[in-house]
């Protein structure tokens, strides 16, 4: 049984000027615990795909299934991480992490304890009572990750979560997040523009075509890594460049 299944999904947006077809006949499946990256040209419907999975949008054609059930409204087992951390400046770090639990009415002693443990695991235990403005960009994005995982989702949707960070922080955080999510055994769907990031972090890369988005190709990423996995070691694997080059050609980018 697949964790996620798109069956001939089509999505059209309407405006006064006309109609935009964002997705057309999109079909793919994702297995449980898989880490899948979506790459493709801008405006090809990657973010729409995530919004459909989160239940923020309903498809105009076809079906989006999670655990063989059609997505209908916001799904409690799906968590969404956006490009920026969107921490609320008026809430302390801990209160930011508790946000999802609060909204779902799941805030109790044990969930609070778990949230604090998450912060401690990410090296932010001493910052619980700080306010977001007092933290660096990388720390803030880690808080956002803790907020995302505090609600214990099965499926994580990451919409370019590292794109707003500086390069060094981005590399370090990519590694950290990849390790955490592998350990937690989550199903992850990452939207990114960074081919290297996609290869280093994922088990599988789906390439989208120009709008209306369809799957153009499907790469299974198999890297030879000595010892324990890290995104840095992944980038050193002999296969890395081969994947990089074929994905680059696949994207067919002209500037």
């Amino acid at each position: 049984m697949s964790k996620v299944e798109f069956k001939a999904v089509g999505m059209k947006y309407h405006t006064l000027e006309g109609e935009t077809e964002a997705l057309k006949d999109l079909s793919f499946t994702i297995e449980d615990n898989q880490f899948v990256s979506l790459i493709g040209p801008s405006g090809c419907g990657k973010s729409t795909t995530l919004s459909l999975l989160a239940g923020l949008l309903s498809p105009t054609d076809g079906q989006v299934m999670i655990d063989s059930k059609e997505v209908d409204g916001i799904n409690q087992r799906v968590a969404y991480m956006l490009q920026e951390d969107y921490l609320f400046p008026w809430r302390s770090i801990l209160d930011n992490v508790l946000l999802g639990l609060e909204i779902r009415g799941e805030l109790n002693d044990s969930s609070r304890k778990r949230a604090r443990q998450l912060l401690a695991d990410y090296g932010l235990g001493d910052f619980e009572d700080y306010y977001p403005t007092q933290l660096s960009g990388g720390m803030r994005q880690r808080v956002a990750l803790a907020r995302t995982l505090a609600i214990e989702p099965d499926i994580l949707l990451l919409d370019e979560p590292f794109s707003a960070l500086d390069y060094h922080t981005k590399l370090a955080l990519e590694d950290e997040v990849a390790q955490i999510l592998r350990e937690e055994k989550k199903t992850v769907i990452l939207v990114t523009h960074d081919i290297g990031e996609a290869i280093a972090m994922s088990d599988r890369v789906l390439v989208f075509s120009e709008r209306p988005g369809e799957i153009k190709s499907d790469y299974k990423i198999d890297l030879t890594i000595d010892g324990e996995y890290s995104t840095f070691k992944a980038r050193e694997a002999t296969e890395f460049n081969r994947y990089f080059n074929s994905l680059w050609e696949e994207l067919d980018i002209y500037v």
Partner: protein
Amino acid sequence: MFKFIERILTKDAVTTEHGQYLKRVRLKKIGVKFSQLAILAVVIIAWELAARYKVIDPFITSYPTQIAKTIYKMALNGELVKHTWTTIYETLVGFTLGAIIGLIVATALWWSDYLSKVFEPYIVLLNALPKMALGPILIIWLGNGVTAIIGMSLLVSIIVTIMMVYNGFRETDNNKIKLLRTLGANQFQIFKKVVLMENLPTIFSALKVNIGLSLVGTIVGEFLVSKAGLGYLIVYGGQVFKLSLVMTSVIILCIVAGLLYYLIVWLEKRLIKWEN
């Protein structure tokens, strides 16, 4: 002596250079304060002297010592507290009602896009209308007294509250709302946890504008109907040509306006702790 001043000016310095920096900053601050006081002193002294030596006619300009005497007399016979309190009371009631009703209307407009589209032209129109023109109508509707004055104070401030707060609500960061929606928040939770919180600074800007506007409404109301209050004193003083009474009232009004404004600033500082 000189060394002592130097020590105060360079207090808490980490290095000598830092000390020089602190000294520059502090001297500038002292300079500004001194200039502010100097302007006030010069105006008061010039006014007093000009009136005494009949450069200006003290009958139509009054003068500082006469004003001070008037304030002293009014303080003794209780007039000062009575009139000042009447104006403050009317302003605060009108302002608070205006703020609460304005906030509720702004929330309703944010809640329903349809509603806001329907009411937009009416709000724009009401905003452009000089509210003072409605004074006589208010007096007929609400009676010849305090209620009409409070009505005036409310009317002057409410439209601005609605417009400023609604615009703030509408410009709430969409991604923060999206984040809450992905967490399963309903409309009420979105309002409470993001829209309202993110707009607290906007709400306070609106309040700061409106405390002044409410005072304008109150004074105009008092001009029209009152038997007490600073607006009443100003009109009465003008009618009987007691300029010292008019000037005194205006000065007290100045102080009241300042105090009310700083009351809002104080509230803002207590409530918005994360922004500094």
